[in-house]
C-alpha cells in the first residue's frame, strides 16, 4: 500500500485487483446486488419514460379558455317543448348575464370524451380516403366563446347559420377548420386552404371559409386530436348543450347562476351535466395522472428497497470483515482508503448491474412497444438511468463504508 503525500487521481493505488479478487470469493452475493440494480434500473427507466410521455400528453392545450369556461345541458320533455325557441331564449338569457364573455350552443365539448366525427376529402368520390375530424356545430359567436383566433379567412356571419334537425344528413356549404386540419388536407400550404372546396359524405362540397389557430377534438386519446371543423349550424333538438366563457374569476358564480336561471325559466325541461372545463380536463386525463402517480410511487419505493438492501448487505459485510479492516488500519491504511475500498467495490458491482440493466431496459421497452404500442424509448434515457443507479449505489454504500472507516486499528489485536 503506497501513499503519496498529494493523492492525485491516477497516482494512487486504487486496489482494484484485491477488490476484484475478494468479489470473486463471494460471487453470488455480488451477483445478487448487480441483478437487483439491473432490474431496478429496468423498471425505473421504463417508468420514467412512460411518465414523461404521459405528462407531455397532459400538457397539450385544448385551445379554449379552460380556466374560465364551462358547459351545461338542457333536455326538454314536455309535449309543447320547442327546442329551437328554447335554445334561442337560453342563449339570449345567458349572453345577457353580467360576467359572461360569450355563450354558444355546441354539440360537443373539447376534452369531454364524446362527440361527433366526420371525414373530409379533397377529391369527391367514395373511393378516396377522408381525413378524420371532429365536428363542432356552432354559430358566429363560437370564436369568441371558445377563445380561438382566426389565422386566415373570416368568421361565420349570422346569415350563414342553418337550422339542423336531428337525423339530418346534409351539411352547410361553409366550414372553418383548424390549422392542423388544413395542413393535413393541404400538406404544402395549410393557410392557402381558405376558399378551397373539400368534400364531406364522399361527395358533398363545403368551402373552407376560415382557419383557426388551435382547437382540440373531444377525445384526448385520438391520434387526430388537433383535427377540428366548425360548421355554421344551430340544432333543433330536445337536448341542447351550451358552452359558456366568463370573465376571469367569475366562472364559479356564473355556473351557479346559469344553472338556476335555466332550471327556473322552463319547467318542461331539465338541466344537467353542469361542469367546468377544469374538471373536464381532470376527468379526461385521470387515467394518465393516476398512472403517473402510481409509477412515481413504485419508483421511489423500489429505489428505497434497493438502497436499503445495499446498506444492509454492506453493513453486514463490514461486520464480517471487522478484523481485516482493523488489520488494514493497523498496517497504515487511512480511513479514506477504507471508505474508498467499499465505494469502489460497489462501483464495480454497480457497473455490472447497470450494463445488464441497460440491456434489460431496452428489452422491456421492446416488449412494451410490442404489446401495448408504446413508442420506443429515446436513447439518452439509458446512460442517464445508468448514472442514476450508480449514484444510488454510491449513496447507499457511503454510510456503512464510513462506519467501517471508524473501526479502530486496535481491533486487529483482539481475537474475534
Amino acid at each position, binding site marked *: 500500500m503506497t501513499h503519496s503525500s498529494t493523492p492525485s487521481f491516477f497516482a494512487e493505488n486504487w486496489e482494484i485487483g484485491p477488490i476484484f479478487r475478494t468479489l470473486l470469493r463471494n460471487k*453470488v*452475493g455480488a451477483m*445478487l*446486488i448487480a*441483478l*437487483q440494480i439491473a*432490474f*431496478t434500473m*429496468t*423498471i425505473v427507466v*421504463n*417508468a420514467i419514460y*412512460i411518465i414523461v410521455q404521459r405528462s407531455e400528453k397532459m400538457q397539450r392545450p385544448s385551445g379554449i379558455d379552460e380556466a374560465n369556461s364551462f358547459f351545461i345541458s338542457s*333536455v326538454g*320533455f*314536455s*309535449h309543447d317543448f320547442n327546442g329551437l325557441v328554447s335554445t334561442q331564449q337560453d342563449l339570449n338569457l345567458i349572453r345577457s348575464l353580467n360576467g359572461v364573455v360569450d355563450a354558444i350552443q355546441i354539440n360537443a365539448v373539447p376534452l369531454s370524451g364524446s362527440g361527433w366525427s366526420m371525414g373530409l376529402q379533397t377529391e369527391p368520390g*367514395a*373511393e378516396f*380516403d377522408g381525413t378524420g375530424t371532429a365536428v363542432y356545430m356552432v354559430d358566429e359567436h363560437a370564436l369568441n366563446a371558445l377563445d380561438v383566433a382566426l389565422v386566415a379567412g373570416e368568421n361565420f356571419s349570422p346569415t350563414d347559420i342553418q337550422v339542423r*334537425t*336531428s*337525423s*339530418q*344528413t*346534409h351539411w352547410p356549404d361553409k366550414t372553418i377548420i383548424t390549422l392542423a386540419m388544413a395542413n393535413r388536407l393541404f400538406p404544402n400550404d395549410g393557410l392557402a386552404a381558405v376558399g378551397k372546396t373539400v368534400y364531406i*359524405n*364522399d361527395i358533398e362540397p363545403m368551402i373552407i371559409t376560415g382557419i383557426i389557430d388551435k382547437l382540440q377534438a373531444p377525445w384526448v386519446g385520438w391520434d387526430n386530436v388537433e383535427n377540428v371543423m366548425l360548421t355554421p349550424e344551430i340544432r333543433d333538438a330536445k337536448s341542447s348543450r351550451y358552452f359558456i366563457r366568463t370573465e376571469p374569476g367569475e366562472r364559479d358564480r356564473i355556473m351557479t347562476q346559469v344553472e338556476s336561471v335555466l332550471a327556473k325559466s322552463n319547467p318542461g325541461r*331539465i338541466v*344537467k351535466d353542469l361542469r367546468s372545463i377544469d374538471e373536464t380536463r381532470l*376527468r379526461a386525463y*385521470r*387515467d394518465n*395522472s*393516476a*398512472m403517473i*402517480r*402510481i*409509477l412515481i*410511487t*413504485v419508483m421511489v*419505493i*423500489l429505489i428505497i*428497497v*434497493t438502497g*436499503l*438492501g445495499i446498506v*444492509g*448487505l454492506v*453493513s*453486514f*459485510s463490514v*461486520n*464480517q470483515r471487522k478484523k481485516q479492516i482493523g488489520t488494514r488500519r493497523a498496517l497504515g491504511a487511512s480511513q479514506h482508503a477504507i471508505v474508498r475500498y467499499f465505494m469502489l467495490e460497489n462501483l464495480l458491482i454497480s457497473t455490472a448491474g447497470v450494463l445488464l440493466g441497460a440491456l434489460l431496459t431496452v428489452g*422491456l421497452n421492446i416488449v*412494451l412497444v410490442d*404489446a*401495448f404500442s408504446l413508442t420506443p424509448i429515446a436513447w439518452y434515457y439509458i446512460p442517464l438511468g445508468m448514472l442514476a443507479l450508480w449514484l444510488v449505489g454510491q449513496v447507499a454504500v457511503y454510510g456503512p463504508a464510513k462506519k467501517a472507516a471508524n473501526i479502530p486499528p486496535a481491533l486487529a489485536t483482539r481475537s474475534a
Partner: protein
Amino acid sequence: MFHYYLKLAFKSYKRNPILTGLMVAAIALGIGASMTTITVNYLMSADPIPTKSGQLFYVQVDSWDPNRGFNDEPNTPPNQLTWTEATNLMSANKAYRQSAMAKSGAIIEPSNGDISPFEASIRLAFKDFFPMFNVPFKYGNAWDQKADDDRQMVVVLSKDINDKVFAGQNSVGKSIIIDGKSFRVIGVLASWQPLPKFYDVNNGAFDEPEALFMPFYLKQELELPNWGNTNCWKTPDGEGFSAFLQSECINFQMWVELPTLQDKRAYMAFLNNYVNDQKELGRFPRPLNNQLLNVMQWMDDQKVVADDAQIMMWLSFMFLLVCLLNTIGLQMAKFSAKSAEIGLRRAVGATKGDLFFQYTIETAAVGIAGGILGLGLAFLGLVGIRQLYGDVMNDLASLDTTMITLALLLSLLASVCAGLYPTWRACNIAPASQLKSQ
C-alpha cells in the same frame, strides 16, 4: 421439533433485527405492489357470467365499406350491427335464445311531485335478455313474446330506479311516465352489476347497467335517440329518424345463446346464408366475414382489460423480483454469519435435512410476516387506486378471499424460494472447516 425450530428462528430474528426487518419489509412491499395490480387485473378480466360464458356469443357480420375495413386490422368485422340486421336476425329466430339490443335514454317524470324529472338510461332488448344473462328479479318478471311483437309499453326497472321513484316498494303493475308516455312496470331487478358489463362493452365496459329495460321495437315506435357509439360508412338515404334507422349505420348489439358446438356451427351457417342472401340484394359489399365470439373471447377482442393495468402488473412482478433478490442477498448474509454455528450443529450430529428444515422454517416465517404486512399494503394500494381513478374503480379495487389466499400463498412461495438457495448453501458447510477456525 417444529416448535423448537420456530423458537430458534425467533431467537435468530432477535439477533439481527434490522436484517430481519429489511427482509420482511422487502417481501411486504413486493407482495403489496403485486397484489394491488393483480387484483385490478383479476377483476377487470373476471368472467362476468361463469355458468354460461362459453355458450353466449356476440354476433358480428361484415356490413362495412367496400373501400376500407372497419378498422386497421384487416379481418375485423364491425363491432355493432345495423337496425336491419338486428331486426332480421331476430325475426329469423335461429338460436336457442337471442336478443338484439341498444342503449338509449329518456326523461322520467315521477308521479310523486317531490321528485323532480330526471334523465335515465334505457336498454332496449328482447324478452330473452333476462333469462339469457341470468338477470335476477326482485319483483315481477320479464315481458313476453307478445310484448316484444306488439311493442307494448312495458318496462323493467333497475333496483336503483325503483328505490328512487317507488321508494323500493313492489311497483309491478304501477305506471310510470317515460319520455312523456305512460309505461306499465312489469318487473323490478334485484341488484345486478355484471363486471365487466359484458353485454355492451362499447359504452364503458365497467359502467353500471342501464336504469330501464324495455322492448326493442319501442326504439322505432317512440323514436328513441341513439346513446353510445354510432358509426356510419355510408350516408343514410334520406333525412329523418326512419331513414337513419334503415341506414348502414351501426348502433346495435346482439347476443345469442348456443348451448352446443353443433348449435354454434348451425348458427354460423345460418349467418353466412343470411349475408349471401343480402349480397344478392346489393348489400354487404365486403367478403364474407362473420364472427361469433363467446363472452371471454369478446372481452379479449375488445381489450376490456386496460393496457395500463397490465403494464402496472408486469412492472409490479419485476418489483417483486427485485424484492426477492434483495431478500436472498440479506438471507445469505445472515446465514453466512452462522456458518460456525452450523458447523458445530453438524459436528454434534444434526443431519443436513434437520438443518434444512430448521432454516426453511426460519425463512418461511419471514415470508408469512411479509405476506400479512403485504396484504395490508395491498389494501392501502387499492384504496389509493380507488382515489386516483374515481368511480370506475370502485368495484374493481377490492380484495376478496381468493385474492387474500393468493397473496399469502404467493408470499410464502416467494420467501421459501428466496430462502432455498441460502439455506442450501448454509447446509452444505463442511463441519470441520468451521470448527477449525474457532
